C-alpha cells in the first residue's frame, strides 16, 4: 500500500508570498504530524492532529503558520507572508493511533521550501 505522500517535493517562493504544503497520510491513520527540519538541525514539532480532537498547535512558531486536516485524511500546512527563516524541509508523519500508544510513525519524503 501507499505510504505518506507530500506535495510539492520542492517549492521555491519569494519572501512575502503565501505557500500551501500538502500531506496525504496512510489510509486509516487517525494521527497526523507536521515537523520542520532546518538544514543541519533536528526536527521541530509543529502541529499534531488526532482524530476529531482539537489539534495540538503548541509547536507552531508564529501566527503565520496554520494547518488544517479534513477528517482523517489530507492535511495542508499554510505559511503566510513567508520569510527567509522559513526555508526548511517540512515533514509529515502519520500513525494508526496517537503518540501515547506504541504506534509506528511513518514519515513522508518531505517538502523542501526555499524562500528567496
Amino acid at each position, binding site marked *: 500500500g501507499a505510504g505518506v505522500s507530500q506535495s510539492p517535493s520542492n517549492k521555491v517562493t519569494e519572501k512575502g508570498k503565501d505557500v500551501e504544503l500538502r500531506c496525504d497520510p496512510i489510509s486509516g491513520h487517525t494521527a497526523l504530524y507536521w515537523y520542520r527540519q532546518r538544514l543541519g538541525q*533536528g*526536527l521541530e*514539532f509543529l502541529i499534531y492532529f488526532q482524530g476529531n480532537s482539537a489539534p*495540538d498547535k503548541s509547536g507552531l512558531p508564529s501566527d503565520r503558520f496554520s494547518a488544517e486536516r479534513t477528517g482523517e485524511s489530507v492535511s495542508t500546512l499554510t505559511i503566510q507572508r513567508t520569510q527567509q527563516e522559513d526555508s526548511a524541509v517540512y515533514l509529515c508523519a502519520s500513525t494508526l493511533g496517537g*503518540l501515547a500508544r506504541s504506534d*509506528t510513525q511513518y*514519515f*513522508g519524503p518531505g517538502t523542501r521550501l526555499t524562500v528567496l
Partner: protein
Amino acid sequence: EDQVTQSPEALRLQEGESSSLNCSYTVSGLRGLFWYRQDPGKGPEFLFTLYSAGEEKEKERLKATLTKKESFLHITAPKPEDSATYLCAVYSDKLIFGTGTRLQVFP
C-alpha cells in the same frame, strides 16, 4: 525547560565495531521516547518507542534502552548500511527532538 541532548554529534566506526549512542533528556512527565533513523534527503524512519525506565527493545543489530534520565541506542557489529543519522525524540506535553548523531560505518 524540557530538553533533549544527543551525543556524540558524529561517530565513525569500523565495520563490526560495536558502540552506543546517547540521548539525555530532562522533561516533566515522560510519556514516550522515540528513536528514528534518517538517511540523507529522506524522511525519518521509525525504529523504537520506549515508555518506562528499564524497558528495552531490539531490532536486528540495534537495541534501545531507557533510564529515568537517558536512553541508549546500542549498535552491535555495525555494517556500512547502518550509516545514517539517528534521531531521538521525547514526548511529554509536546514532542521534542534531539539534533541527532551522524553515524558512519566504514568497511
